[in-house]
C-alpha cells in the first residue's frame, strides 16, 4: 500500500502555524519559530495542512518503505 506523508519546504516556510491548527493528529509543531516540523510517525497524509498552507509549500510525498 502506498503511504503519503506531508513534507514541508523548510526554506520557504514562514512559520505561521496554519498547518498546526488544522492537523487532526497534532503531528505538526513549530518549535523554534523558523519552520514547521512534521512528525512522520503521526502523519497520515490527509493533506489538510497542504491545503491550508498560505504559501502552498507543503506537499504530500510517497514515503519510502
Amino acid at each position: 500500500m502506498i503511504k503519503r506523508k506531508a513534507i514541508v519546504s523548510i526554506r520557504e516556510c514562514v512559520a505561521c502555524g496554519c498547518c498546526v491548527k488544522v492537523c487532526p493528529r497534532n503531528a505538526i509543531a513549530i518549535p523554534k519559530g523558523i519552520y514547521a516540523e512534521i512528525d512522520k510517525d503521526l502523519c497520515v497524509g490527509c493533506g489538510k495542512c497542504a491545503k491550508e498552507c498560505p504559501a502552498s509549500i507543503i506537499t504530500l510525498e510517497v514515503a519510502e518503505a
Partner: protein
Amino acid sequence: MKQKKKWYDYLWIASLTYLILGFFNILFAWLGLLCFFIPLIISIVKGNKAYCNKYCGRGQLFSLAGGRFGLSRKKDIPGWMKSSYFRYGFLIFFFAMFFLMLWNTYLVFAGAKELRTVVTLLWTLKLPWHWAYHGTLFSSGAAQFAFGFYSVMLTSTVLGFVTMILFKPRSWCVYCPMGTMTQLICKAKNSGSSQP
C-alpha cells in the same frame, strides 16, 4: 477529532473590535501597539512564533472570513510573493513607512506641523476621519500617532483582505512584516542549534 477551542481562538473578536473602535474614537488606535510588542517580546524572550501560531487575531479573522465565510478563492500565492526578496523587501518598506509616520508624529509633537485628522490608506489615499476625533487630553501629537498607527493597521488589513480573496485565507501571513521580523529574531536566537 476536532480540537477543543481555547480562549485564544477568539482573539479575532479583539482584532475586529479594534478596527471598529477606530471609527468611533481614533485614540483607541494606541491599543494596536499590543499587536506590535507582544509578538516581538514573545520571539525575543521565548524564541518562538507563538504569537503567529496561536494568538494573532488578524490571522484568525482572515481564516474565518476566507474559510468559514468562503471569501477566498483558495488559489496558490504567486511564487514571487513568497520569495525572501519580497518578504524582506516588504518588511523594509513597511518599516520605512512606519518611521516616516513616527517622524510626522514628532513634528506635530514639536509643534512644527498641524494635526491632520486623516487616515492614510495604502500610503497614498487620504481619507477624512475627523468624526473619530474628539480632542485629546495630551498633546495633539498623541492623536497624530493614533491616526498614523490606525492607518498602518487599516492598510495592512486591506492588503490582507485583498490577498485573502485572491489567494488562500491567511496569505497575509506569508508577507506580514511582523511575521517576517519575528521569524528573523527566532533564526538569530536559535542559530547555532540544529540548522536546516
